[in-house]
């Protein structure tokens, strides 16, 4: 069985407890290790890791990013997670679980800069990089082995090793034969993980997993599936395709394919994105305006991150709410100018939420950005009444000017060289 040392990158003919070359234990072995080329790379507790990188005395402390006036956790480092802190948790609850945590307000410009540095490294390996957010991306490394003189698994191990050493954050890799499986795999062994799902084991790998691992199957869809007696992927396998389509529509066909590990979507660097949205279903219905507002803020940040990752900006902000009786409300607001900033998205969505407050409680909240265009047209006019806005715009203008002049890749890689880089 082919194997690979994730520390010294030596390839081995067989699995070993420790690498014979460097003596370290992170030896990865899999029968199809050097035959797979679709990867999902996901940074570990990204925001918190960036904060720890920038302030080394935080390294051994629990760190929570988020809070401030809006009061929910945007990200928690692994130390905080040991105490039970999770994303989207109200800050007071997080601090009850982990009172000595350092709470840091998110610095999105910083995260975007670090993300660009990481992206530049990915793009040096293959043009087929499909960012999903600031902290995760799909890579298709098919056919790159000759160019780089090493199989994809080695390139990926080197990529995350270099990101850790030079950018200062850790990442986990899922390697498989399609995007669906690669994404599940990257989550299996976090942090600093590297998981492989081969073709031969695909069906066995999926069989006992809950249907919730399928992307897009959230709490509501799970409830629908559960009503049909479908809890695990193995339950899906008992249905034939026509029956699933009859019951769940187009989604049924997708479920049938994914349950078999079939996913033909290409990794596409410039897949046209029509809208960007994030939503969350609550464990129990929420009526408290502060808490709803807090979730809205966190979702606005996520949407903005994804817009930035895709280099897009949108002009229409949509708020989605699901009432306790499952009725869906959507409200939209058009902006004067396209944006990719969390603050602008939140400022557009929050009044929409306030207007719907009498219809609370809600079981789901979501926010979306649409009418998308290139980010070049975004946030270009300052605000006469908001000095803060003018400063942000000035900073962004400067960054853009440099990028436009020297090219995105070159300037970004240059920035990534030192931990004290001044980007963002």
């Amino acid at each position, binding site marked *: 069985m082919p194997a690979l040392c994730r520390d010294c990158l030596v390839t081995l003919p067989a699995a070993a407890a420790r690498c014979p070359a460097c003596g370290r234990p992170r030896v990865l072995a899999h029968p199809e290790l050097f035959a797979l080329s679709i990867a999902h790379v996901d940074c570990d507790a990204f925001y918190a890791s960036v904060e720890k990188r920038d302030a080394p005395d935080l390294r051994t402390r629990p760190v929570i990013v988020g809070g401030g006036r809006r009061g929910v956790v945007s990200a928690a480092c692994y130390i905080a997670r040991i105490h039970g802190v999770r994303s989207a948790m109200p800050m007071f609850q997080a601090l009850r679980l982990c009172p000595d945590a350092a709470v840091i307000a998110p610095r999105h410009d910083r995260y975007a800069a670090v993300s660009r540095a990481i992206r530049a490294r990915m793009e040096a390996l293959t043009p087929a990089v499909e960012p999903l957010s600031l902290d995760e991306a799909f890579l298709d490394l098919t056919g790159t082995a000759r160019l780089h003189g090493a199989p994809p698994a080695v390139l990926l191990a080197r990529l995350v090793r270099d990101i850790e050493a030079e950018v200062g954050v850790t990442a986990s890799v899922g390697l498989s034969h399609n995007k669906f499986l690669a994404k599940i795999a990257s989550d299996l062994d976090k942090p600093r993980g590297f998981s492989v799902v081969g073709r031969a084991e695909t069906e066995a790998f999926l069989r006992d997993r809950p249907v919730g691992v399928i992307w897009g199957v959230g709490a509501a869809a799970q409830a629908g599936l559960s009503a049909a007696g479908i809890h695990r992927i193995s339950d899906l396998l008992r249905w034939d395709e026509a029956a699933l389509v009859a019951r769940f529509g187009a989604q049924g066909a997708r479920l049938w394919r994914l349950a078999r590990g079939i996913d033909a979507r290409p990794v596409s660097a410039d897949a046209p994105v029509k809208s960007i949205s994030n939503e969350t279903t609550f464990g129990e219905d929420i009526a408290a305006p502060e808490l709803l507002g807090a979730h809205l803020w966190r979702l606005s940040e996520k949407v903005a991150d994804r817009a930035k990752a895709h280099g897009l900006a949108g002009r229409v902000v949509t708020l989605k709410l699901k009432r306790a009786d499952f009725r869906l409300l959507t409200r939209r607001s058009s902006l*004067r*100018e396209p944006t990719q900033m969390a603050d602008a998205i939140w400022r*557009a969505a929050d*009044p929409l939420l306030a207007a719907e407050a009498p219809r609370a409680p809600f079981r789901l909240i979501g926010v979306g950005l649409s009418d998308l265009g290139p980010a070049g047209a975004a946030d270009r*006019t300052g605000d*006469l*009444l908001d000095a803060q806005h003018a400063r942000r715009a000035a900073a962004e203008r400067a960054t853009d000017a440099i990028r436009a002049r020297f090219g995105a890749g070159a300037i970004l890689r240059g920035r990534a060289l030192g931990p004290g880089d001044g980007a963002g």
Partner: protein
Amino acid sequence: MKISIERGPLSRAIGQAQSVVERRNTIPILANVLIEAEGDAVSFRATDLDIEVVDRVPAQVDQPGAVTVSAVLLHEIVRKLPEGALVQLSDDPTSGRLNVRAGRSSFQLATLPKEDFPVMASAEYGSNFTAPARDLRRLFDKSKFAISTEETRYYLNGVYLHVATGEDGPALRCVATDGHRLARVDAPLPEGAADMPGVIVPRKTVGELRKLLEDDEAEIAVSVSETKLRFATAEITLTSKVIDGTFPDYSRVIPTANTRRLEVDAAEFARAVDRVATVSSERSRAVKLVLEDDRLVLSVTAPDSGTAEEELAVAYADERLEIGFNAKYLLEIAGQVDRENAVFLFNAPGDPTLMREGGDPSAIYVVMPMRV
């Protein structure tokens, strides 16, 4: 109630009423107009709970009374009647319908009890004065384009009407801004207005008010309190709540030290901006201005569709400047200039730019530049 009324005045009164009523309201009575007949006049009253308009029209009243009926429906009917028609309105207490009769047409419309119609509580107006309609028209017409539609900053969703010290002494002043542009317009302070509290007049009120200001010679009675204001002509009384908020201190955003001066024919400038902006498919179309030695070069670069450039002879003697603007904003402020040349005062490419008409300081505009 039984009245006869000419189509013309009826159409005007009901037209104003139907523009006040809220179309998407959930309270049925708010879609109705209250028609009250007494003496030799009929009044039409409509409200959306924020604005109330009462329009008195002379009519032949055969039987006094009052009724409420859908404003939009009655407006549609009256609109489709032939010009010059005499319209009879009479209510039928047994069926609860309003009969509308003109020539050979007749309609029976559903009504709602007049007792349910909300009449706006009257306020104590601490300040009462009269102002020429043309002054008020200029104040609001030149400032309303800058009203914000952003719901978060609700206090910008109107025109700030207040007393200020203008360049030529005390002034009645209107200011509107959406954060991208700002308009500040002054008129001579009417007698008795000096102690008027500053109020934010909602966008919709500004639109409705405009219909009272068509007559150049008219004098408008204005009453202002902290929470409401009222404008009245002989026929129409418009009462409106004001926006409950604090208008930001706009004086600090009006640049005072901009020294680079451009003078240009406003109409020619606007046409050139409009032409070059054609190639851009973006909605916030960015136009670049390059100024140097009495030359202005306007250009637009649209990556997908092409480029455009136009050169204008202008008066500009300061150092070379490159600055970008949203084409729409430039067209809007250039459109405010009607007599003299437009004078732009610039600072740096990232700083707010000031525009006024010739040397006239009674209307000034500030616009934020755009990154190009």
